[in-house]
Each structure stands twice: as structure tokens, then as C-alpha cells.
């Protein structure tokens, strides 16, 4: 069979390495989640989050001292942003409004009136409610997409694609757990849109596999995997460009965007990268694996017809 593509790497042949890598990452992710859990932001864990733009360079110790002065101990603020002008502090308890004003005033007293803050306060039952809603959202979205792919293709494509997109969503969650990055509401948006977006490459590849399947006869497993490899390379350029287009935006948001959008952008970057990887290295070989299981039947048919 000549598919007239520049085959540079045998993805299908090396599938076990990819499977192994992904399974390892998944296991590490599960372990990390079990041991460290997620670094839940204020949206999911009751408490108060303050993000203060000071307008001047500030050190972590200075920020901590200001909090200690007004009687808040045991909270370690983080400092970041352009020129270290931003202080973020997370309090495990729900701070009352007068206390928040007191903190803001303490910073104003130290750095002047340009101090500007973003404050989020979430009560425990709201946080719990949101957590439950989120898990539902991921499940509903993936089932919806699975049904759609099942209608458009067949169950093997749908199953392979769905395993791969759930894997992508999980990789985002796992990496956020491993690197102790804060999980907030926009993070959920990033995970859910990862699911929606990551399916695209898979559909492009599966479309091509199906097209090639229709126009050729594949008598044995080798020919089938040869065809999958060829399909991957035929769509490679397109898939890389499309992912790059969105990735460029996500990277720009991460590098130049405002503080509160950075983590969202990072989650998108992880999701997009994982999505590109899983389309090529997981979803397609997985489909082949599922397809290969019914090979005996095909072999009998093709041997009688030829």
C-alpha cells in the first residue's frame, strides 16, 4: 500500500511506549490526588481570597508583617505580578467585611491610596455545591460528546475518543495537583473546554481513517496499522496548525494576561498539549486495538472473497 505520505515516525508501532507513559502519568496523578489532593482555591473551599495590587514593589515579608500587625497570624501571602506589585493571601475562614476593610486600610496606610484589591469570600456550602456541580459537568459534557461521536462514527471511535479526552481532562487536573497550582472557577472552564476542544483533532484523524478504510482493503493487522499510521501523517500538518493557533493565544494570555487569567491560560496550555498528544498517540492506536479484536471475523470474510 502506498499512501504517498512522508512517514517519519511509526506511532502505531510504538504505541505501547505511549500507553505506558500515559498510564504512568495517570497513576502518578491519582497518587498525587490521593496524597496531596488539589490546591483548592476559594471557589471550592470556603474562605476568603484577597488579591491586592499595591502599585509598588513589595516583598513577601513586608506583606506578612502588615498582616501580623493587624493580628492575622499563620497566613503566608504570595507576591507576584509585574514588578512584584501584587499580593495574594488566602484565609481559611470567612472573613467578615470589617476585617477585610481593615486589611485593605493597613495596606493603604503602608503603600498609599493606589492600593486596589479583589476579594472573594465563599461560604462552605457554596463551595461544596460547586464541587459537586463540576463533577457532574465533566460527566455530562463527556457523555454528550460521546453520544455525538457515536452517532457520527461508531462505538469504537466514540470509546477511543472518549477515553482520550477524559485522559486529557485528567492530565490537567493531575498536573495542577502535582505542581500545587490553585484550582478556581475559571479552571473548570479550562477543563471543560479542553474536553470540547480536544475532541476536534480526534475527529479529524478518525474522519481520515474512515475515509481510508472505505477506499482500501485491509487483510491483516499490519496493513490496518499501516493505514492508521498513514492517516496520522496525512492529517499531521493540519492538526499541528490548528492546535498551534489556539496554543499561541493561550500562551499569550499566560504571558501577557492579567493575574487572574494566568492559571486559566496555563490549564488551557496543558489541555491543548495533552489533547494533541492523545489524538495521535492514544486515541488512534486505541481504536486500532479495539478494531483488532474483531480481526478473525474480517480475516475469514476477506479470505473467502479474495
Amino acid at each position, binding site marked *: 500500500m502506498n499512501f504517498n505520505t512522508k512517514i517519519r515516525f511509526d506511532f502505531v508501532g510504538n504505541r505501547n511506549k505511549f500507553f505506558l507513559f500515559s498510564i504512568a502519568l495517570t497513576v502518578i496523578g491519582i497518587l498525587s490526588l490521593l496524597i496531596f489532593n488539589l490546591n483548592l482555591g476559594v471557589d471550592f473551599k470556603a474562605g476568603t481570597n484577597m488579591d491586592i495590587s499595591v502599585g509598588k514593589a513589595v516583598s513577601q515579608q513586608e506583606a506578612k508583617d502588615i498582616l501580623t500587625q493587624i493580628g492575622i497570624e499563620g497566613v503566608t501571602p504570595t507576591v507576584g505580578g509585574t514588578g512584584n506589585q501584587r499580593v495574594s493571601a488566602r484565609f481559611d475562614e470567612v472573613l467578615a467585611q470589617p476585617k477585610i476593610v481593615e486589611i485593605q486600610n493597613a495596606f493603604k496606610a503602608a503603600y498609599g491610596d493606589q492600593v486596589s484589591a479583589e476579594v472573594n469570600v465563599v461560604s462552605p456550602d457554596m463551595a461544596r455545591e460547586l464541587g459537586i456541580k463540576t463533577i457532574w459537568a465533566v460527566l455530562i459534557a463527556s457523555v454528550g460528546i460521546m453520544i455525538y461521536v457515536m452517532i457520527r462514527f461508531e462505538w469504537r471511535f466514540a470509546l477511543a475518543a472518549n477515553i482520550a479526552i477524559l485522559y486529557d481532562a485528567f492530565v490537567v487536573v493531575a498536573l495542577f495537583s502535582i505542581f500545587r497550582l490553585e484550582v478556581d472557577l475559571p479552571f473548570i472552564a479550562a477543563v471543560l473546554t479542553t474536553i470540547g476542544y480536544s475532541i476536534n483533532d480526534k475527529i479529524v484523524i478518525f*474522519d481520515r481513517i474512515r475515509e481510508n478504510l472505505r477506499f482500501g482493503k485491509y487483510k491483516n493487522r499490519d496493513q490496518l496499522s499501516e493505514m492508521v499510521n498513514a492517516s496520522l501523517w496525512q492529517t499531521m500538518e493540519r492538526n499541528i496548525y490548528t492546535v498551534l*493557533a489556539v496554543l499561541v493565544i493561550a500562551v499569550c494570555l499566560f504571558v501577557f494576561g492579567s493575574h487572574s487569567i494566568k492559571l486559566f491560560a496555563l490549564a488551557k496550555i496543558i489541555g491543548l498539549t495533552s489533547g494533541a498528544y492523545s489524538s495521535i498517540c492514544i486515541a488512534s492506536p486505541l481504536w486500532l486495538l479495539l478494531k483488532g479484536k474483531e480481526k478473525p471475523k474480517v480475516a475469514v470474510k476477506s479470505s473467502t472473497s479474495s
Partner: protein
Amino acid sequence: MFGKRIVAFLAIVVVMFGVIAWTSPAIVKDVRLGLDLKGGFEVLYEAEPLEGGQAVTPETLKETARSLASRIDELGIVEPEITTEGTNRIRLRLAGVTNEDEVRKLLAKPINLTFRAPDGTIELDGSDFVQNGAGVGYDNLGKPFVTIKLKDGAKFEEVTGRLIGQYLAIYLDDEELSRPGVSQAIPGGSATITGNYTNDEAKALRDTINLGSLPLKLVEKYTQSVGASLGLASLKDTVEAGIIGTIIILVFLIILFRIPGVVAGITVITYVWLLLIVFNLMNATLTLPGIAAFALGVGMAVDANIIMYERIKEEIRSGKSLLSSLKAGSKHSMRTIMDANITNIIASAVLYYIGNGAIRGFALTMIFSILISMVTNIFFSRFLLMLIIKSNLFNKPSYYGVKEAEIREL
């Protein structure tokens, strides 16, 4: 002959960009910014019945939301967003508020309606009134009066009996609203309050009494407050990030796809402009995640172009003419593009359903951006390319990013 087509193409592009350049400043000015970009605060209240009061019903919740709205109006805050959620929640968004502290204190206060004797003793309070029992009536001369209903007729008779010839002042918190006189003891538990009310005043008094009869306590469940200068900085940074990303993508598109790349650039700009218009028409609020969705939407709009152009390139390589490559390429890529868009809409719709506040803004922006990108980056893009190809001015494959050597003989 072919000149006509390229003239049409240029005319469309020039007119389009002229309109965009002309209308954009006004459109951008009209965009309603969310409180995370403009500064302000958001509070989610949960309404609870005040000591032993009745359970919260949809009516009482709406009434409470309305009273919050009127309190906010008194403060002169523009465009408050007040919505009721579920069975017992009220979400309040106030953008551009500077005296947040005062506003919140005022809003959290329960509605305290009292009827007081001249010496200041409280004779009746909100809980003495039948819920939603007050109304407005008109006498023969068309003058409005307010009717009230009390739970305990005997108590009212006793109070009015004691105060004959005096008055029973109506207070909301510590503000005297009205001072109706008492001419006789009123039996039966219902009464009318007449005075020199205008229609609006009478209605306002009715609403206040009704509200006072629904003793709800508002508990803050979630609050978000953003300083104005912080919001402005977020807006600037994130918009800049989006613009930088878009420019990089457009440059890449032109390098990779040449002429179609230029067409993609034109359609992407049109897409942003249209999305902003739709945004304003819907009166939607642009939030920070919304801007991120806007920018990501550019990436996804471009996706549609890339999928189509790659397919067209393939068709050109297989030896077809430019025109039939365009036709075959856009036909074959259509399904894939639709699949990509539909799956994204599914995910965004789920997000809209579960999300709240800024996340809803994100999901909504995502859905609109997908719908609009279908118009601009599939159909408009194909139409422009068709004009260019039919003009025969750009008929070398290299204009479409295909090397001559790659083309196979048919």
C-alpha cells in the same frame, strides 16, 4: 472579464473595513464591562426567614429582590444587576461602586417596617400584616388610597381605639414614610390609609408594607469585590494579550497559506467585529474570562480556515484546478469543521448550565463566538476565496502555499 471579480473582492473588503473602522469606536464604547473589569462587587445572598417567619417562597424572594433594587436605586448606583436564583438566592452585581462598604451594610439590613404611636412606641411591625395583603384602591375622584390587612383584627382595633385623634406613623427602618391620622377604632382587621398620595406614592407605600410583612434575613454566601484600578489593569493586560496572540496567528497564516491566509485575516477581523456587535445587541456583560473566550475564539475561528485550506492544498496537490480544489476542499472539510464546532458547543452549553457569574459569561461568549465564526470563517471566507480564484489573477499554486513540484499529474 475577470477584472470584475477582483474589483468586487476589493470593493467588499474596502467597504467592510471602512464600516468596521467607522463603527468600532462606538461599539467598543458600548460594551458593558463586568465588575471584574470595571471594579465593583458581587454578592450572593441566601434568604432565610427571620425568627419563626414563614418559609421563603418565590413571591417573597422576588419581592425582596425588588426591595434591594429600590434601596440600590436610592443610592444612585447605575445598572445594578439583580437576579433571583433557585428557591432562596438573590445575586446582586454592582459595577463601578466605590463606597462598597456602606452599600453592603445598607443592603444586608433586614426590612424593618413599623407603625409607631406619636410617642415613638412601636405598636405594630411587619409580622402583624397579612403577607402581600396591602393593595392600592381609588376613590370616586380617582384619588389613590392604600388598603391593608392585619392578621389580628382585635389587636388593630385596640391600637386604633387607643390612638383616636392622634396618628399612626409608618416607618421603614428609621425613616418616617407617612403619618396617617386615626379617626376611629377600626374593627375587622382591614383598613384603608388615605392621604394626599400620588399614584406612585401609594404604590410605593403598598410595596413597602408588603415587603415589611415578609421578614427575610439575607445572608452573604459568596462575595467578590474588585478594585476599580485592578479591574482596569486586568482589562488592559488581557486585551493586549489577545491582540498580540491574534497578530502572531495572522502572520503565521499568511506565511503558511499566502492568499487564503490573507482572506483568513480579513474574516478574523470581521469575526471580532461581529461578535462585539452581537454582544452589545444581547446586552451581555463582558467579563475577564469572557475576553479569554474571545481570544480563544479567534484561535478556533482560524481552525476552521486551517482545516479548509489544508484540504484545499491537498486537492491542489492531487492535480485538480484551483476552482475545483476550492469546491472539493470546502465540501470535504465542512463535516469536520461542523463536528469540531458542535462538540465545543456541547461543552460550552454544559458550562453555561453549571456556571455562574463570570463563568456564564465565558460560556456564552464561547457559544456566540462559535456560531459567528461559522458565518465568517466558513462561508464568508469561502466566498472571498471564490472571488479571488475566479478572477484568474492569482492562479499560481504557490499563491496558495503549494509548491509546483508537489503537484501530481492526474
